[in-house]
């Protein structure tokens, strides 16, 4: 497992890429959910 996470010494680069991508998708999904909820309550 530790070997997998270290990515042969490239862990920061590999997980930094996927982590930020995952974070970006999450932020978009959450902000869309908030926007949808707000629209529904105001409609």
């Amino acid at each position: 497992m530790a070997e997998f996470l270290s990515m042969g010494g490239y862990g920061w680069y590999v997980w930094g890429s996927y982590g930020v991508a995952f974070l970006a998708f999450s932020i978009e999904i959450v902000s869309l959910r908030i926007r949808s909820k707000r629209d529904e309550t105001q409609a």
Partner: protein
Amino acid sequence: MKWFWYASPQTFYPLAGKIARAAFLVAGVLAAAGLYIGFGVAPTDAQQGEAYRIIYIHVPAAWMSMLIYVVMAFWAAMGLAFNTRLSGMMAQALAPTGALFTFIALWSGALWGKPTWGTYWVWDARLTSELILLFLYFGFMALQASIDDPRRADRAGAVLALVGVVNIPIIYYSVQWWNTLHQGASVNVKGSSMAPVMLAGMLVMTFACWAYAIGASLVRVRCIIRERERNG
């Protein structure tokens, strides 16, 4: 299909909701499968070691950043040509998701550049034209946000989107037209120079991103439809 029937925001609204839910489900399943292939099945690269695994997010995100721009410009053109309300809404709904994929492509590219080229960033043709793409998305969104009348905002945004589409072939062919650190295309219409299992992981991740983009932009277009109905 009754295309012009669905071109009405009111009839499109429930359909968009159904498609969005299915798209997110497909995106989740494909992302899990793609990551499994990319990290569990595909072997270590002979030259780059494990660093190459960034490819499974970098290339799909970069493809999506260009594809979404083209689709956005297409809807913008449809809106200008036929004055259909939904077209402008679709263009507006696609822009933030396109910007998001552009950002991910640039970010993962920087983190891939450091171990392979020795630098996070260079001002070369491929990287610079992709950065311009990000600014085109931001410019489109800022321009639309700055105009109160939604129909006028759609038309102004559409002109910007159409002018900016010239940047797409520049990004795509930049690695051929200029000397660049960025490698050439590994995949084109004639075939692929990649190992089949690596290509499979990359394509599955691409379809996952595709499904995600459809889901996110359809949820957003539903928000836009509701907000414009309410504000008249």
